[in-house]
């Protein structure tokens, strides 16, 4: 039995713990800096508890994100009010026509962070998993427990919404402090 624990500890240290920074930055975007530590700790506790069910041939980071999402939903998200994204619009992809504009600059980190926090949580999660963590659509679908078509739709809509929000905040910084009112919710 002790040998089993030792072997599991070594595997956990090798496969799971190196992803702690990735889990942390994702947790921070989901619940904010103050609660991120607790979310990370609970995620890893649960991962440790069920580590014998993890298939080494699969992506451990994606597995951890899935646990993170489940913990987040059960502990944090349920306690907040959030309007569901209409299911009828889930699978639609809109072409990129009206959003392209030369406004994105490196120093827009604050605006980007604010815009991310204003995105619907499912859009934000899809964007973070794709753009920050470089997960494939299939892996994102598995983490978020939805069809690949929904992942595509969330990325498409989320990126457009994000770009508009960043632009709005950048423009409102000096001349117009009132952001547009198309998205207001946080989670």
């Amino acid at each position: 039995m002790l040998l089993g624990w030792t072997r599991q500890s070594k595997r956990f240290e090798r496969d799971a713990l190196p992803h702690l920074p990735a889990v942390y930055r994702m947790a921070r975007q989901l619940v904010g800096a103050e609660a991120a530590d607790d979310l990370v700790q609970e995620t890893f506790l649960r991962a440790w508890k069920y580590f014998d069910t993890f298939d080494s041939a699969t992506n451990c980071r994606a597995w951890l994100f899935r646990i993170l999402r489940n913990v987040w939903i059960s502990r944090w998200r349920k306690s907040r009010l959030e309007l569901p994204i209409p299911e009828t619009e889930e699978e639609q992809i809109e072409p990129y026509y009206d959003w392209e504009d030369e406004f994105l600059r490196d120093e827009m980190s604050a605006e980007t962070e604010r815009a991310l926090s204003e995105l619907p949580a499912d859009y934000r999660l899809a964007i973070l998993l794709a753009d920050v963590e470089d997960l494939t659509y299939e892996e994102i679908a598995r983490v978020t427990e939805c069809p690949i078509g929904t992942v595509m739709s969330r990325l498409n809509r989320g990126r457009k919404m994000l770009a508009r929000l960043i632009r709005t905040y950048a423009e409102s910084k000096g001349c117009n402090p009132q952001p547009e009112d198309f998205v207001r919710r946080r989670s």
Partner: protein
Amino acid sequence: MMDCKDIREILDLYVDGELSPEATVQAETHLAECVPCRSAVARLNRLRQIVKTTVGQYQPMPQLVDRVRQSTISRWRRPRTWVPVAATVLLIAVMSLFAPQIRGAVANGLEVAAFHLDDSRATVMEGKLLCRDCLLKEEYGYHAMCPTRGHHGSLQTRDGKIWHILDGEASEELIHNSKLLGRTVRIHGRCFRRASSIEVDSYEVL
């Protein structure tokens, strides 16, 4: 052959590397010739890069890394707190057996347990009545209480085994009448072999 509309519809899949190899070739063929679509791709990539840089700037504090490590893998490596606690409890339990009152209580408890475990059966047993305490004093130097509490009769059978006579109405005389000590008696009753005890229904002095 892809046109601008096609490209704009699959822009996400293209920048995310999710297009099939054939579709990627077609998209790149169009992008090589179309400046506005190439700009659209560049802007989308720029958005992705800004998100990555913004989110990636945060790192966990070393204390969090330690906390996670402590609550998972290190939990089984550090000395377990329950081991010394269990050892102390066991030591106290063993030590307490040397205290006379506790030792007596434990003995009584074991005796009760023995009766519960024993298979009793009807028996007729013949032997000599002896005082158990006097015998123990003679054999082991046991501090007998006979001068103050009186003798306590037990039965010694021919094979040398000493049987404890259980208290009861029928056994009163056998246990407490010191005049019967040294006499041979035949006891009718029940025998508790594992507890080395006899329950007396009747007896006769031979």
